[in-house]
């Protein structure tokens, strides 16, 4: 499902070139769940960004579903993301001026789905927010916002879900609730899951775990 070969990233700062990711070679199968752990600044988000095609690598390449992301242009990767990938972020990243429903509808609309509204409401109901459809993110609590984000991530039935510290901004109880939901949905949709976390328990719930340090897999 996901495959990387010698994935590396070098950034250039005033202090000189800085290699923030070194020769990462990975293979993640369909339906598998992978946890990426490591200390802060070890390159977890960098790796996630490269896997999801949000960024392009300095060396090596990424294959999603057999297609070489690195060879695609920006718009090609966008289409790929829309069809294949869902995201959950630490800071929710909902559009403030859209209602919960509209936020969830957005990826469907981008894909040209005619039944965006029905599907989105159904999924919001699934995450327990049937009564908050018309609320804007500002009126929702953090946990609720993250549930909206979950609904948005799953609504396109993506083959892969990327989650970057999905519980980072939540208290443990709310966090657990969100995590339960995430795994349930993951199971229901048989999604490949790549999850970045600091949380050991959470990492242990995944099939596999890799640890990054200074940009390299330990």
């Amino acid at each position, binding site marked *: 499902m996901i495959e990387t070969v010698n994935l590396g990233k070098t950034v250039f700062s005033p202090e000189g070139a800085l290699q923030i990711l070194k020769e990462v070679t990975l293979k993640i199968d369909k339906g598998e769940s992978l946890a990426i752990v490591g200390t802060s600044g070890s390159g977890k*988000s960098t790796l996630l960004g490269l896997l*999801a095609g949000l960024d392009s690598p300095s060396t090596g390449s990424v294959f999603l579903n057999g297609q070489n992301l690195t060879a695609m242009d920006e*718009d090609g990767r966008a289409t790929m993301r829309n069809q294949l990938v869902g*995201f959950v972020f630490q800071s929710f990243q909902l559009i403030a001026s859209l209602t919960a429903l509209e936020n969830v509808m957005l*990826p469907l*609309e981008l894909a*040209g789905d005619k039944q965006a509204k029905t599907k989105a409401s159904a999924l919001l109901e699934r995450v327990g927010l049937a009564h908050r459809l018309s609320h804007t993110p500002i009126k929702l609590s953090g946990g609720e916002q993250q549930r909206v984000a979950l609904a948005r991530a799953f609504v396109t039935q993506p083959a892969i879900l990327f989650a970057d510290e999905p519980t980072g901004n939540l208290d443990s109880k709310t966090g657990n609730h969100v995590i339960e939901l995430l795994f349930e949905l993951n199971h229901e949709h048989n999604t490949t899951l790549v999850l970045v976390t600091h949380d050991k328990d959470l990492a242990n719930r995944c099939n596999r775990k890799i640890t990054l340090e200074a940009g390299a897999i330990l």
Partner: protein
Amino acid sequence: MKATALLAWRLLWRDTRYGELSILCFALIIAVSCSTAVNLFSERMQRTMNAQAAEFLAADLVISSSEDISKAWLDEATRLQLKQAKTIEFPSALVENDELLLASVKAVSALYPLRGQLKISDETESEITTTQAPAEGEVWVEKRILPALKLHLGDVLNVGEKALKISKILTYEPDRQGDFYSMSARVMLNERDLAQTHVTQPGSRLHYSFQFSGDEKALKTFHDYVKPKLNASQRIIDIHQNRPEIGEALRRAESYLGLLSILVVLISGVAIAIATRRYSERHFNTVAVLRCLGYKQNQVMTLFVLQFLILGLFTSALGCGIGVVVQQGLFYLLKSFLPATILQPSISSLLLGFLMGITILFGFAVPPLLQMQKVSILRIFQQQLEIVTPSAWLVYGIALSLTSFFIWFYTDNLKMTAIIMGGGLLTLFILRFFLTHFLLYTKRFLPKISLNWRFGVEALLRNPKISTVQILAFSVTLVAMILSYSVRTDLLKDWQLQLPNNSPNHFAINIFPQQFDKISSDFTQQNIHSSGIYPVISGRLIAINDVAVQKIVSKETQGDRAIRRDLSLTWSAQLPEDNQIIEGEWWNKTPVKNQVSIEDKLAQSLGVKLGDKLTFTISNQEVIADVVSIRRLRWDTMKPNFYMIFSPTTLDNYPQTFLTSFFLPKEQKNLLNQLVKTYPNVTVLEVDVVLTQLKTIFTQLTSAINFILYFALFAGLTVLFAVIHASLDQRIYESALMRVLGANRALLRRTHLLEFALLGFLAGLLAVLISQVLLFALYHWALHLTYSPNLPLCVLTPFGSAFLVCLAGFSCVRNVAKKPLTTILKGK
């Protein structure tokens, strides 16, 4: 306080280093330099225009009198350090070589003319300009005097008992006042030779003109000093009162330039308000953190006000500097249109520009800044906490009072201020209400349309309140520009109407009755268009309803001028071209004797109504006539115009000559010689010189106005950028998020374009509505022009506006899609 100031400075410095303030700064500098340039430009332009008008007076201020004026007045003028000159005009019969000619002699003092220049020529016919009066013992004459008296340049001309040498031909004098009908040939001599001519006896008809020039304030003081002391035969004239047609044009141009300045200030204000609002919003967190760190609320405010003060001082100074350069550059660019010498800007107006910069800044920046005061410390814990806005009335009251003050300051007209403010505010409130509701309503009924369209429309509807503000900001700017443009176009049209291209440029006077038929047929033969041939009879109005006019008429009015000298009276069976009866009726085919039709402004100032009985003296006989109609006429058409037109036969028994005016193109000038040869008694006056002068002035006014219009446009574009920049962060963020979710860049571009187009279109539509209402009010009450909507403009504006907003908007957001997507992972 010192610590706060230091902190303010440091915060400001850091902000600029991180680029946070650059947009605000940019907006401020544009606003200040813009308004400074406009101020300076219009101030210098106004002063130059005034100087031009002064040229027609040959001075800044003139006291005209039929006798010498009190020495105390002249001493006062000396005390005020005013330059002085004096001219004495009188009619005099010249006899040379057995020929007789009635000339108008003008004795001038050494400094004449104080303003403008004389033009003279010699045999070579090449014209030179001079500001020197004729030397003692010399005389300058108008060309037509030489053939009439069989003289040549260098000959001796006897004026009264004094023999003077004809040294130059006088071709132009700046202050030649055109009572064309009775204009006789000019002879100009030095005042010191006057006594020896012995033509000025006590009781002879003299016309004194005491001319002054100098510092504007001193002139004002002098004006106020002299005015109450004037007697019935004296008048004081300054550049605003002189020459009704130019005075009117200048006054209009002045109020127009003033109006434009206000609009530029307002537009800049909008830009500043938007920029500051964004600045405030960006600093809500800073405020919360500072409060957490133990800063008191008013300390926080002081901190930000100080930052703005520093910013204001810096940008105002910079803006002023740029303004000076820009306006200098403009004068340079326009130099072929403008008079050779442009007066320097006064330090005070530069200072005014600087102060105004700071005032505009604070007037429009304080309201959004005040929002910071309401930032809750709790924001530290909860980023999204909404801001409690301070009482909107208080906040916008400041900006409104400031705006009103500016309008009043420029127009010096409370009524106009009230109209602009009242009308403007009311419209804004109503529009805001309707616009917000219109957007909300549309949102609910958004039809199922294609994705691009939906996203575009939705982007606009997402936040109806912000969209409303944006649309209103654009509209106000557009309204300002439409107003400027329309008023300018209509003023120009009005001015051009005043001076149609083939308006008569020659007057022929002193046509004898027996020549009437022949000269008419000559004109027809030569294809010369004349504006009718009218009899002229000299007469004086002495009583209204048997009350002597002196008792009725107040000083300084037109009526006053009309009764102090002979009027050119006429009779006519037909109503002359361009005359319009506004009361009573024109006589029909069988007119009754002893009826008269009077011009309406004179009737007003004399208090004459229909049915009144007017008594005239004509050739020492009394003529009594009843007023049967009141006419409105255009004084600025260069056609024969008469205050009084009598019914046919009323004036049959009085000596009369005829006059006409006609248009002769340059190529046909040689016809003049023929005319003068055939009718030696007829005097032809070439008034095209005066016309050229008028046209020059109007052209210059137009350029000035055109030019300042570009400034309004520039200010408008600033607003455009400010508004788009204010929403840039959000756009960048949302675009990045949409791209993460799979939107391609083309879609985002189309969405943005559509949003901008819609925004621009709506703003344009609104602007058309508002501007037409305002124009109507303005024309009707302030400018006294006729309102007629400019349809192409109304139709084009929304599309033009859509295009403009798209262009500006797109140039701002074109980089939006380049934002690295990884930022989304980092939580914005």
